[in-house]
């Protein structure tokens, strides 16, 4: 089981999209209707092989042992004879010559319609209730009636039927005592008292030009039913009325009605009047039955005194009586046939006026229509046959084209008056006959009208086992009591029995040989050979040479040899002329089965069908034999019958079905009940007009192969003649089929009767099929047309309720509590025979539907099959079924639907599909505006989500930004710290770098004082040695002056040593001072000394690095400056930096090799008003304008990477400006040199200031 889906908004939206997509899909077209579809399967064809060949060995009977064949004489005239009516037509004798006729010469009297007696109509209006619908029963053979007459007694009519009428929509109406009913072959829709219909005996039904149904009563009432308004108009007046048998709407809109015993009534609805025409007005009699208006407008009225022809224009009545050529004075019916002839029935027969009204002929009952009494109703059917009904229940069918006349005894008994007033051919060519005294009958002239004949009809025995049409056209009927021989000419049966010379009673197999003799087999006493001409019977038994007396199969070969099949497998050949008898007995291993049928094919090959042994194929010239049995694919070895078609193929009937065996292709095609057989046990076979007639135990199934244009295989159709078609019994007798020269079918059935069936009329008409109802939520719904109801009720004063005398207000439609009204089902109007709604729209809750449907199969309404499709939901047509209601469609989605249904009946022709359209509305939440709403909601939702998402994103971005900022801040902080430390490191490294640069210079600077120290100390030692030498000399030799001089020198030298020692000391101190981190303390410093010191240091440093370096140093110190307060380390660094740069600048320029260039770096100090200026000047290349702005930026350097930190000048700038509140200025001229000037503010030292002032 599938897990219920969790409904999430996302899924919802997805589903919504799906629904929208589905809604946009539109309705699906149904596949085309499969016209060849059948409720039966198509037969299966399989290959087969014959068995192995063996050879038959014949034994010849010794002639010496044979006795001569006894011959019995019989006399046709002395055979017992009985009249038998098998309902077969007889040749129409024709009529005597026509006599001249002229309407103008008829006697006439003046006639004025306005001078007729007239009175007002009283019209009572009653609501017409919904009819009671009952399932109709079946029509059955009318006992005692002629073959083909079926009675509607079993139809289930509520009361005695007296009249029948077909309305303009093809529906049959039956008028009864107190009721009328509409009949559609499936149901009866009955209107009676419950429906507000009051009429005790319906004599006439008539549909007027407005579709209203007029119901004439044999009693006092006339009702007009308005179905559109659902009203019954009961029309009455002060005039007496009686039997209304015929109603006519004249061209002028007036209604003419018979009023038996009075004359005719003329009703003018516009005038609300009724007039009566009686013998007083010139009518020839009061017994009136028929009205007819011809194309000239003449109104023909029948009466018991003759025909009255009213010429309204001329204002006269023409009187036509026997004196003017009428066959009888009691005129009973008028009918204009297709040729324009007017048939005028009378008690003695019909008088027929030709189309020109120039001749009159008489069709006298006494001459032509045996047994007919009176001549009332005449109808010409669609095949041209005229059907004439008499007053005694006798009906004649006159087929003028074929010159055939057939009499039908319709009503049983034929006692008393059985007036056939109505003959109707319905739209399915069924002839309906209503008898005014009660009784409704039907004849189907197209479905064979099978008859059921027994001893009661004149047969000698009910055990009919064989039929044969002899060369003379007589039908030989083989029974267990001899042979009944029917003579169609005399309509008699003669019996030929054992008494007349047959060897035995049983005659179950009859064959006529090439000499016209009829062989009678089937009795176990032997066989009889009857010569109808010589009127002799030869008796052939074992005594005369037969191997067995019990023979069933018989065939005559071309050479005159007869083959006989014995009851226990014997095969005997008979040469009767030469008395040669040969036989073959089955071996014990073979069979002891009856060789039931023997036939010879076009190649003179013998086929033997055995009941139990299958088929044997014997070549008589070689005596070679092969079998076809179940081993070879035969459906059963019990083969009752075989026939051979024109192509030499075998049809075999077995107890398990029928097989078609194609000898050429070695194929077998099998037919069973699945393929349409009425039953699988098939006892008789006949090929006729390309159809295969199979006699089963449950009826006669006719197989027909329909060649399909685009298919190799034919399409097989099957139809079965059964009880509905008129067969009383169904189990056909073995091998009893015969088709006579009139294509009439003869057969024995069930050993109990003979059936005779006319040739089936090829019928390719399709039968109207209707959707008859719709069931909503399993309830059948009645629809009505409110607008039509209202329109048809306008102007009415009062309407009675159907069941009582309560009145309904005129403007009101009766209250309707039906489902469709309460549930708000919508439709526009109704249409068709079943009031189906047009434009039906159902709500989504009413999507549980089924449909009723019906084909109006007035003929053969059994085995009608249907298939339907609900376009919009079904992909294919439904399976073929006899159901008359569709499956229940549940949970139909909203959309447009078309229910289509088609039917197929006896003739295997599918009807045009009938369709019914409706719409299921979507629930409001699936309508377009709901979708619109959803779309808007979706948009809104999307918008909200968008807003939310945006807000969220923004918030996120903000937070991220914050984080990033925070991070950045941290990083900045860190970087700042790092930078700080890097800076201090850089500063330190800058210091150390410059220290490095200075080292060499310092070393050099130290070297000089050290040299002095060393040299002077050495010199002193020499001097001291010299002094000592002098002192060691005797006094006199001593040079005192020298000694003094020496001591002075020594002293002087020591002074020099001390001086240079100090000098070195100060240099080292300065260096250490430089390398030391700045104390940050300002102290009084001699800026001149500082500058000089660093100038030297720088010079020697550079020299040390670059030996070629040389430059002139100039100093110009202002000695008045004195000491100023500075941070010596820092300021020294600045000066060193500036001087180093200056040296670099001049060195750069010198490298260019300019002639006469004298690199000069000068350092000067100057005391000004603004403070102290220290100027470092070079005559190098100068600084380009472009970069002079940037030289104080940190890390800015023009030196190659790795050669300078780029911090020197920026640090110098910092030190001067921030550390000392001074200024560091630069002026430069490209190509000429640069001057850096440090301007330090005056030292605020009071002492100094005083001094300065002083």
């Amino acid at each position, binding site marked *: 089981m599938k897990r219920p889906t969790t409904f999430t908004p996302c899924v919802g939206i997805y589903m919504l999209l799906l629904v929208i997509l589905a809604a946009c899909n539109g309705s699906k077209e149904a596949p085309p209707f499969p016209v060849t579809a059948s409720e039966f399967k198509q037969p299966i064809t399989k290959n087969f092989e014959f068995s192995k060949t063996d050879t038959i060995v014949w034994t010849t009977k010794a002639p010496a042992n044979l006795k001569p064949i006894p011959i019995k004489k019989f006399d046709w005239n002395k055979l017992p004879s009985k009249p038998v009516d098998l309902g077969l037509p007889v040749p129409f004798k024709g009529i005597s010559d026509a006599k001249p006729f002229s309407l103008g010469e008829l006697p006439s009297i003046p006639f004025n319609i306005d001078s007729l007696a007239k009175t007002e109509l009283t019209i009572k209006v009653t609501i017409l209730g919904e009819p009671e619908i009952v399932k109709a029963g079946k029509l059955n053979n009318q006992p005692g009636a002629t073959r083909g007459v079926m009675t509607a007694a079993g139809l289930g009519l509520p009361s005695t039927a007296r009249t029948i009428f077909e309305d303009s929509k093809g529906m049959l109406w039956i008028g009864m005592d107190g009721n009328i009913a509409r009949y559609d072959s499936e149901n009866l829709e009955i209107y009676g008292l419950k429906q507000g219909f009051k009429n005790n005996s319906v004599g006439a039904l008539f549909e007027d030009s407005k579709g209203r149904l007029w119901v004439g009563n044999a009693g006092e009432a006339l009702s007009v039913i308005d179905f559109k308004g659902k009203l019954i108009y009961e029309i009455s007046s002060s005039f007496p009325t009686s039997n209304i048998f015929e109603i006519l709407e004249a061209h002028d809109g007036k209604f003419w009605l018979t009023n038996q015993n009075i004359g005719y009534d003329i009703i003018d609805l516009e005038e609300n009047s009724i007039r009566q025409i009686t013998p007083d007005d010139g009518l020839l009699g009061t017994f009136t039955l028929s009205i007819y208006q011809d194309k000239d407008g003449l109104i023909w009225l029948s009466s018991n005194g003759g025909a009255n022809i009213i010429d309204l224009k001329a204002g006269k009545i023409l009187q036509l009586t026997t004196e003017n050529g009428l066959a009888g004075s009691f005129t009973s019916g008028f009918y204009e046939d297709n040729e324009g002839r007017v048939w005028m029935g009378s008690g003695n027969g019909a008088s027929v006026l030709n189309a020109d009204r120039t001749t009159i002929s008489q069709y006298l009952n006494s001459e032509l229509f045996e047994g007919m009494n009176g001549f009332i109703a005449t109808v010409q059917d669609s095949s041209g046959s005229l059907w004439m009904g008499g007053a005694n229940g006798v009906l004649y069918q006159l087929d003028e084209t074929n010159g055939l006349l057939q009499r039908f005894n319709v009503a049983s008994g034929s006692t008393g008056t059985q007036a056939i007033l109505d003959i109707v051919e319905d739209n399915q060519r069924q002839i309906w006959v209503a008898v005014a005294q009660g009784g409704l009958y039907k004849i189907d002239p197209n479905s064979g009208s099978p008859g059921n004949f027994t001893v009661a009809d004149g047969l000698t025995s009910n055990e009919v086992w064989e039929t044969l049409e002899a060369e003379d056209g007589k039908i030989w009927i083989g029974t267990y009591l001899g042979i009944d021989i029917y003579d169609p000419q005399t309509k008699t049966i003669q019996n030929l029995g054992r008494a007349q010379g047959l060897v035995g009673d049983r005659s179950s197999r009859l064959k006529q040989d090439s000499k016209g003799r009829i062989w009678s087999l089937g009795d176990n006493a032997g066989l009889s050979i009857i010569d109808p001409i010589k009127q002799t019977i030869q008796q052939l038994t074992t005594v005369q040479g037969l191997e067995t007396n019990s023979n069933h199969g018989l065939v005559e070969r071309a050479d005159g040899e007869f083959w006989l099949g014995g009851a226990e497998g014997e095969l005997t050949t008979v040469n009767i002329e030469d008395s040669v008898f040969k036989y073959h007995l089955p071996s014990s291993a073979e069979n002891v089965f009856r060789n039931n049928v023997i036939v010879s094919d076009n190649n003179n090959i013998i086929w033997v069908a055995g009941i139990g042994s299958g088929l044997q194929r014997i070549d008589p010239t070689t005596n070679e034999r092969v079998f076809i049995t179940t081993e070879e694919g035969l459906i059963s070895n019990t083969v009752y019958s075989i026939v051979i078609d024109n192509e030499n193929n075998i049809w075999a009937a077995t107890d398990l079905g029928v097989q078609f065996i194609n000898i050429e292709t070695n194929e077998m095609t099998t037919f069973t009940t699945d393929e349409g057989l009425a039953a699988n046990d098939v006892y008789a076979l006949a090929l006729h007009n390309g159809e295969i007639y199979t006699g089963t135990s449950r009826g006669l199934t006719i197989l027909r192969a329909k060649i399909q244009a685009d298919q190799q295989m034919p399409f097989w159709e099957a139809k079965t003649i059964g009880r509905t078609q008129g067969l009383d019994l169904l189990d056909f007798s073995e091998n009893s089929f015969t088709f006579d020269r009139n294509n009439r079918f003869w057969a024995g059935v069930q050993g109990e009767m003979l059936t005779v069936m006319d040739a089936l009329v090829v019928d390719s008409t399709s039968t109207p099929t209707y959707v008859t109802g719709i069931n909503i939520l399993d309830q059948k719904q009645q629809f009505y047309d409110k607008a039509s109801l209202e329109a048809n009720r306008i102007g009415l004063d009062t309407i009675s309720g159907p069941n009582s005398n309560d009145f309904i207000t005129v403007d009101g439609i009766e209250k309707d509590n039906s489902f469709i009204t309460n549930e708000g089902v919508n439709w526009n109007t109704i249409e068709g025979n079943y009031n189906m709604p047009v434009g039906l729209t159902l709500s989504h809750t009413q999507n549980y539907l089924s449909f009723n449907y019906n084909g109006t199969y007035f003929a053969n309404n059994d085995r009608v099959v249907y298939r339907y499709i609900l376009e919009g939901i079904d992909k294919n047509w439904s399976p073929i079924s006899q159901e008359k209601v569709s499956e229940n469609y549940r949970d139909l989605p909203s959309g447009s639907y078309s229910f289509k249904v088609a039917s197929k009946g006896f003739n295997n022709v599918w009807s045009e599909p009938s369709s019914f359209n409706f719409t299921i509305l979507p629930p409001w939440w699936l309508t377009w505006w709901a979708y619109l709403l959803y779309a808007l909601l979706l948009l809104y939702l999307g918008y909200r989500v968008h807003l939310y998402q945006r807000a969220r994103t923004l918030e996120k971005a903000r937070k991220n930004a914050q984080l990033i900022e925070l991070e950045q801040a941290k990083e900045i902080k860190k970087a700042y710290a790092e930078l700080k430390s890097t800076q201090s490191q850089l500063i330190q490294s800058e210091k150390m770098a410059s220290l490095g640069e200075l080292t060499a210079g310092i070393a*050099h600077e130290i*070297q*000089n004082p*050290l*040299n*002095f120290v*060393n*040299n*002077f100390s*050495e*010199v002193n030692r020499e*001097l001291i040695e010299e002094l000592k030498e002098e002192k060691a000399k005797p006094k006199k030799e001593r040079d005192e002056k020298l000694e003094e001089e020496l001591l002075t*020198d020594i002293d*002087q*030298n020591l002074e*020099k040593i001390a*001086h*240079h020692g100090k000098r070195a000391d100060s240099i080292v101190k300065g260096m250490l001072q430089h390398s030391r981190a700045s104390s940050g303390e300002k102290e009084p410093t001699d800026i001149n000394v500082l500058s000089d010191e660093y100038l030297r240091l720088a010079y*020697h440093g550079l*020299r040390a690095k670059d*030996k*070629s370096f*040389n430059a*002139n*140093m100039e100093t110009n110190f202002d000695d008045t400056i004195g000491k100023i307060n500075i941070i010596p380390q820092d300021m020294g660094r600045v000066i060193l930096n500036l001087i180093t740069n200056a040296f670099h600048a001049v060195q750069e320029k010198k490298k260019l090799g300019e002639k006469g260039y004298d690199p000069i770096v000068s350092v000067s100090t100057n005391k000004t008003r603004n403070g102290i200026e220290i100027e470092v000047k070079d005559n190098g290349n100068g600084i380009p304008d472009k970069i002079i702005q940037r030289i104080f930026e940190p890390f800015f350097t023009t030196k190659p990477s790795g050669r300078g930190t780029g911090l020197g000048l920026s640090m110098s700038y910092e030190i001067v400006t921030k550390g000392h509140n001074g200024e560091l200025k630069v002026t430069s001229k490209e190509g000429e040199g640069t001057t850096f000037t440090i301007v330090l503010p005056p030292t605020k030292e009071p002492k100094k200031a005083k001094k300065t002032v002083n």
Partner: protein
Amino acid sequence: MKILVVDDERDVQLLFQQRFRKEIRNNELDFAFAFSGEEALTYMDNHNQEAVLILSDINMPGMSGLELLEQIKQNFHKPPPVVMMITAYGDKENYDTAMKLGADDFLTKPVEFGILKEKLKAML
């Protein structure tokens, strides 16, 4: 014979006078001192090429010893004085330049007075 010592270090005069005290007393050597290149040239002009041997430092503010050498070798020919260069920077470049300019000898500081005495005695 006169020897002109050119050095920016003034104490060089005292040092030389002390070191060559005996030779000076014995008038074996006669020293003159100049404290820059320019001063040396002035001396040379004024004393008419009195000095026959010139001892010059190279690294001096103003005119360097090498420039002085060049001047002497170009301007003073009768007789051409012997010029000995003394420098703290006894590198090859200095040496080559000095030799190219016509220096007669090249001494590096600190001067070994013993060796210098020998050279002077030998030269004279």
